[in-house]
């Protein structure tokens, strides 16, 4: 019995392909990112110098970098305080209807299977000032055309709305599954005790779905820190860097401006910031929502 499943050569052969790829594309890049972040290498020439923390002080002293950090912050803020309440509302509503439930689920999830690049193109068209859908709709209410993607004060909003449009449904389906998994007798008991629909939602359903809401927030934060393609496709970080996020800032320096070492410094900073935010969130908030068993 044990002999067949305890053969070191077979074990190694089965595990090696995955491990080699993993080391090549996860471990090795992580190490080299840290290594090059302390150099002034331009990515092509044969010479480079170790310059200590100079890249780090340069990044942390650059206003444009902090602008990009702030924009990642907007992504997180928008997800947690605007998207999450809407996600909970919509999933409660869908859970409470019987007719059309399947249709709602299918429709809301659809944008999340599509390419972010194509969605960026689609929404650039919607935001197009003269013929785009957005200004046409606003025009009905007598609002003058807004230059969504070319004006600094609107561009970030335009991207955040597009991002929310793409991902809200994904999380609605996650939360919906959690709501539908709550045993019916809990609701019925509350109903017999005279609790109204709103009371049941706040006192029974909501506390029971907190673990999954916490997962939704975690995933939103991870997604916010990774955001890049939507920005590249819709605004390329412009106008004047006003929609840059850390990832697009990194790409701009490393690939377009041949500052490979500095680019890696930004990569390491993205790592560190992501780790800090995740840790803070886990310590401060997630602890309250432990696993629930019925």
């Amino acid at each position, binding site marked *: 019995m044990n002999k067949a499943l305890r053969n070191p050569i077979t074990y190694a052969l089965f595990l090696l392909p995955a491990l080699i790829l993993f080391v*090549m*594309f*996860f471990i090795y890049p*992580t190490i080299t990112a840290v290594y090059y972040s302390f150099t002034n290498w331009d990515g092509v020439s044969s010479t480079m110098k170790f310059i200590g923390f100079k890249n780090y002080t340069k990044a942390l002293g650059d206003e444009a970098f902090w602008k990009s950090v702030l924009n990642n912050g907007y992504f997180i803020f928008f997800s947690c305080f605007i998207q999450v309440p809407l996600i909970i509302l919509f999933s409660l509503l869908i859970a409470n209807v019987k007719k059309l439930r399947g249709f709602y689920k299918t*429709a809301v999830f659809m944008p999340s299977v599509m390419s*972010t690049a194509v969605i960026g193109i689609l929404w650039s068209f919607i935001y197009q000032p*003269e*013929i785009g859908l957005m200004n046409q709709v606003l025009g009905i209410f007598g609002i003058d055309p807004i230059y969504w993607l070319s004006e600094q004060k609107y561009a970030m909003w335009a991207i955040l709305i597009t991002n929310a449009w793409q991902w809200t449904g994904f999380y609605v389906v996650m939360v919906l599954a959690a709501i539908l998994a709550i045993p019916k007798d809990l609701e019925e008991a509350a109903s017999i005790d005279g609790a109204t629909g709103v009371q049941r939602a706040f006192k029974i359903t909501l506390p029971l779905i907190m673990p999954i809401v916490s997962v939704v927030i975690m995933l939103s934060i991870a997604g916010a820190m990774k955001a890049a393609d939507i920005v*590249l496709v819709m605004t390329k970080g412009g106008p004047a860097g006003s929609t840059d996020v850390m990832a697009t800032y990194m790409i701009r320096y490393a690939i377009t401006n041949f500052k490979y070492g500095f680019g890696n410094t930004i990569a390491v900073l993205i790592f560190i910031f992501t780790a800090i935010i995740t840790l803070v969130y886990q310590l401060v908030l997630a602890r309250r929502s432990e696993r629930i068993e019925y």
Partner: protein
Amino acid sequence: MMRNWKSSINHIILLAYMLVILYPFLFVIFSSLKADNVTIASNPFGFPTEFYWDNYVNAWVNAKISTYFWNSLYIALLCAVVSIFIGAMASFAITRMRYAKLSLFFFGLITVGMLIPNNSLMLPIYLLIRKMGILNTHMALIVPYIANAIPFTVIILAAFMRSLPGEIEEAAVVDGLRAPGIFARVVLPLTVPALVTVFIINFLGNWNEYLLANYFLSEDALRTLPVGMVGFRDAYQTNYAQMSAGIVFSVVPVMVIYAVLQEQIIEGLTAGGVKG
């Protein structure tokens, strides 16, 4: 009576939400059938009065959709197949072979991969691809796509294989099968539901990937659909009717897959919590 009234309010709010989700698609479909920007501007919401199919022909030719489409399709398929195969072998070794401590370590290591924000590894991976001499070939996408899918694939498949009862191997061993035989003839067939889910998720991820595809390939004929579409948008920015037809072309295949495999897609994506 009261109940009916309440559920109507629910439906009204939800239908408004549906309108926000679905109308952009309708807007693009309508626009793709209109003659030009002027027609779109004069009748933005409605159905086109005259169908203008030329946009589809022009978009297909100008956007080189056929080239991008096949590039995307074969890369996405190949990588999805290879990564589930490699992932399944690793998961088998980790969950079914008798090296508990070592397996626990390797599984932990691979799980860490899920926590690394993979965008930020783009620069070192670019360098690695250049050193391997495969920059600007399709291998520049194929190898990283396979590698990137491994943590997710192993986590899902290992969870599934772990849940299989131990008796199945005992029977197989009695029948004289060795580890590779147990893997190929017993465990793999039983894992098919999970394999299908992981395959779809990996396929969609590769099909939609933009960042690496944009920076690792510079030759137009090699491009994948998302990158090709952005290039097309930049080149024909003023012709929105044609651009809409291009969007329709690139969205339809995913819509068809989604219509057929909806259940597995939703289950897989929400289980893994992978985004984009």
